């Protein structure tokens, strides 16, 4: 059974006002257990609005959201369970830190779940270890940490709840390349260790291309496509039309194909490109 499923999900902001805006339009998708999903789309395409339905923060204007096959908006208890099954890390999560110490902040989620002190302690330390925060840092005030550390502390706060699906909204925005890589490593490790589904929202293809099993492309609130990376990137031209920049390698291969070279249209990682080129160049070393 899929962990997250939506049926004709529609969400409208400001119904009955002049600012009415259909942010999510008739979205029906399925996300499997343990799957890695990337959600991309132009700014304002409804990505953030969509994911806030997965743990019931927003109630659908129409349609349903099923977690583990159960409609989470059916009653309050289901809603609360969904909050704990699905962990949601907002964009710029460091702005939600509030406790006196990093330790207490990470413990906030597990405490709300009603875990015992020992269990909470275990979870906090495990999560801190996973995101690479030193024991020393745990007793500091979260406001004293560096930007990257704050971000990781906030992510640890959700990871400590050990959700069956971890959703992150633009987790790498505003970080340097190293910081970005570090965040994606954390996400991958969480997935491997807990066998949990991970869903990463981004507007950059490059971030997502390397790690997702499937990519959901959103355009103006609707699903443009939801498929494996090679299939998605084979529609590079259409992606560019809806304002998404495809990875550099894909662009180069598009140009080469236009020039008449017979190359595949689904190249999206440098590794894959390297292999193809080596093959085509017929064993001549060094490309």
């Amino acid at each position, binding site marked *: 059974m899929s962990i997250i499923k939506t049926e004709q999900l529609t969400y409208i902001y*400001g119904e009955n*006002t*002049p600012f009415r805006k259909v942010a999510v339009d008739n979205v029906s998708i399925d996300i499997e257990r343990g799957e890695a999903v990337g959600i991309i789309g132009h700014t304002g395409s409804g990505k953030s609005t969509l994911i*806030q339905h997965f*743990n019931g*923060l927003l109630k659908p204007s129409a349609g349903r959201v099923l977690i583990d096959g159960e409609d989470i908006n059916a009653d309050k208890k289901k809603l*609360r369970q969904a*909050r*704990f099954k699905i*962990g*949601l*890390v*907002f964009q710029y*999560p460091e*702005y*939600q*830190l*509030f406790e006196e110490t990093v330790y207490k902040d990470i413990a*906030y*989620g597990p405490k*709300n*779940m009603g875990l015992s002190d020992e269990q909470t302690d275990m979870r906090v330390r495990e999560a801190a270890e996973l995101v690479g925060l030193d024991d020393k840092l745990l007793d500091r005030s979260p*406001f004293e940490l560096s930007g990257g550390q704050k971000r990781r502390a906030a992510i640890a*706060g*959700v990871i400590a*709840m050990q959700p069956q699906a971890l959703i992150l909204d633009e987790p790498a925005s505003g970080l340097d390349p190293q910081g970005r890589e570090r965040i994606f490593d954390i996400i991958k490790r969480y997935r491997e260790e807990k066998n949990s589904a991970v869903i990463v929202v981004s507007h950059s293809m490059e971030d997502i291309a390397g790690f997702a099993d499937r990519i959901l492309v959103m355009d103006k609130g609707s699903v443009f496509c939801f498929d494996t990376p090679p299939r998605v990137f084979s529609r590079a031209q259409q992606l560019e039309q809806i304002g998404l920049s495809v990875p550099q390698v894909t662009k180069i291969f598009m140009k080469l194909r236009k020039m008449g070279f017979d190359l595949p249209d689904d190249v999206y990682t440098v590794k894959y490109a390297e292999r193809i080129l080596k093959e085509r160049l017929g064993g001549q070393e060094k490309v």
Partner: protein
Amino acid sequence: MLKDITIGQFFPGSSAVHKMDARVKLVLTIVFIVMLFSAKGMAGLCVCIAFTLLIFAISRIPPAMMLKSLKPIAPLVLITALLNIFFVKDGDKLFEWKFILITDKGIDTAVFMVVRIICLIVGSSLLTYTTSPIDITDAIERLLGPLKRVKFPVHELAMIMTIALRFIPTLIEETDKIISAQKARGSELDTGTLTEKVKGMLPIFIPLFASSFRRADELAVAMECRCYHGGEGRTRMKQMKAGRRDVFGCIFTAVFFAAVIAVNILTK
């Protein structure tokens, strides 16, 4: 959602009322209030009602907004009505039971007062519906301009108001986000005893304060980088100009004011 509360409730549009000079609108709103209070009887009030409805129609603000502006003052209206009904003792007796005495004069006064309050709110909310908060502050600054002579910090006050207005929607949005983020971590904001509730607010207030200070800091630096040094010698990007439309608006209001006074004299 918190965001649904729009402060100032500006309703963008392109009607003649929208396009009028904010200073003129502000002054005319005050004139309108004076007009309301100079109406002595129901007849005069009817002229005011006609005026309000006409302007509402011209401004093309959805009529539902009229009701929306009244919602918050509904209790006040109710209390006014009840006080007048029960405590006005002169006039003909309509109903008497133990110490409760209701007279026709009481009912009349109640209706009069209620209509007047409703008119007041609906009419003056038109100003905020059709004028952006920034324009209103600008207009206030201009109108209070003469007070600068007596060293009253008009510009500074206007700047404070402008900045506050500018940041209210931002902070509301931010609060919304923080609430969502803490809910995602399983916080229950609206359960438990009072102390628990207050404690439950901390995860929201602390990040909110932190971010307000951060924004204030950033704004101060940005203003300094642009060499902001107060009001002295600053020119404006948007010049306010009163035009024919405004003259027409003034005449329109004057006609109705005259009508109210005429009705007052005739019905005496």
